[in-house]
């Protein structure tokens, strides 16, 4: 049973979304049903006007009577809210995807984390295995976007960053709104201009770190990989590729709540992150270095004398057995 056909105007889709939140709130706290409805009514009245508030009340009654409150509304809210897909790296099942879930859903997105299972480093080296994963990703994208009108955004890490550009290159049908890459192993000269100008992606955020060993290492074992997770991209597609360089970040240092809420989610909502403040390197603390080297030297000397002392107590040479063999 459908509440409404595809192609609802944004304002109506938002109204359905609000009603969904309202029914969930009532289900959680039925003793305050009237107060919750009053709160919703007042908020809608202020923000969207009397027409929407009163239409919402009518819809609520009809949905209630048809027992579609959750099912029907859910279908269309899912269809109309912007979709965000995420894709993890190798040798992990990506706890960060779970951490991200609450924040991204609260921000009004429909979140669809993808999990391709535990992918071993050795599998990454084999071209046919990478190819199979690229096809898998296309299939997942197709399934996830079946009921949405607009292209989804995507957040990818490590091996996930490899799959997104490769799939974009290979499958012309694939489209994204915003793309967030972190710990990227994509080649630095990836042709983002061509992708953006063909409307295959709107804007790309490359969240990358100066100490990302794996981003630097990937190109040594994977023919079409590169260190964009440590060095950035050469082609910034006329400013559509937003760089966010974190000099001290390693491969998986991007996964923390503040980064989701202050950088990634605003970017998905249309706001570029501020530039990372360039902090000058600290001068060498010679006093600390002197103490450190003194400790190391003392340890080496102590070890040397200790070994010498032990060798004196227990001479290394074992007693020789002398055989007096007389000539027969």
């Amino acid at each position, binding site marked *: 049973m459908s509440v409404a056909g595809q192609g609802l105007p944004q304002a109506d889709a938002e109204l359905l979304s609000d009603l969904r939140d309202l029914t969930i709130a009532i289900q959680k706290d039925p003793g305050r049903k009237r107060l919750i409805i009053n709160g919703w009514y007042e908020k809608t009245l202020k923000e969207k006007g009397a027409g929407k508030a009163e239409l919402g*009340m*009518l819809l609520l*009654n009809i949905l209630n009577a048809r027992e579609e409150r959750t099912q029907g509304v859910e279908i269309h809210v899912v269809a109309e809210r912007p979709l965000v897909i995420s894709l993890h790296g190798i040798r992990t099942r990506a706890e960060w995807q779970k951490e991200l879930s609450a924040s991204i859903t609260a921000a009004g997105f429909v979140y669809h984390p993808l999990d391709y299972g535990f992918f071993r480093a050795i599998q990454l080296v084999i071209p046919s295995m990478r190819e199979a994963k690229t096809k898998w990703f296309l299939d997942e994208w197709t399934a996830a976007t079946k009921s949405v009108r607009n292209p989804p955004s995507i957040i990818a890490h490590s091996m996930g960053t490899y799959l997104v550009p490769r799939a974009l290159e290979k499958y012309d049908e694939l489209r994204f709104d915003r793309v967030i890459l972190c710990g990227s192993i994509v080649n630095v000269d990836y042709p983002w201009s061509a992708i953006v100008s063909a409307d295959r992606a709107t804007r790309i955020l490359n969240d990358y770190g100066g100490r990302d060993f794996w981003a630097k290492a990937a190109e040594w074992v994977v023919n079409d990989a590169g260190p964009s997770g440590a060095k950035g991209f050469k082609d910034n597609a006329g400013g559509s590729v937003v760089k966010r360089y974190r000099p001290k970040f390693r491969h998986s240092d991007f996964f923390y709540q503040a980064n989701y809420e202050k950088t990634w989610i605003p970017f998905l909502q249309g706001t570029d992150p501020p530039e990372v403040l360039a902090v000058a390197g600290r001068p060498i603390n010679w006093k600390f270095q002197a103490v450190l080297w003194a400790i190391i030297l003392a340890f080496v000397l102590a070890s040397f004398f200790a070994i010498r002392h032990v060798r004196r107590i227990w001479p290394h040479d074992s007693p020789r057995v002398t055989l007096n063999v007389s000539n027969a």
Partner: protein
Amino acid sequence: MLPTNFATLTAERPDLAPALDEVAEWIRNHPSWEVLDPRELSKSLRDIDTWHLALALRLLVEKGFFRQVYKVVTPSGVLADDIFDDPRLIPDRLPDRWNQYFDTSEADVVAVLAVRE
């Protein structure tokens, strides 16, 4: 009797014409009703999409055929007599049809369409 002639509206909003026609037909079949209850309509007019039914009812209000008011469902499942122009004006306790007061905090609030005075 509630108004049933929505011909001008169906010409203006042909997308809502099926819903408006069905509503008019339903009213004609229920001449004793004093208010239009969307819950009853939605159960009877199953062929009409929920969204279109709500839009059609809202259009009837906006065009002045009805006014949208609010009633509260009593614990016995019928609508209490009191009518409110705004759901926020519903008091914490209301009398049911036997003048027994009930707590409205958990009660369903129903947006109904009443004839304009």
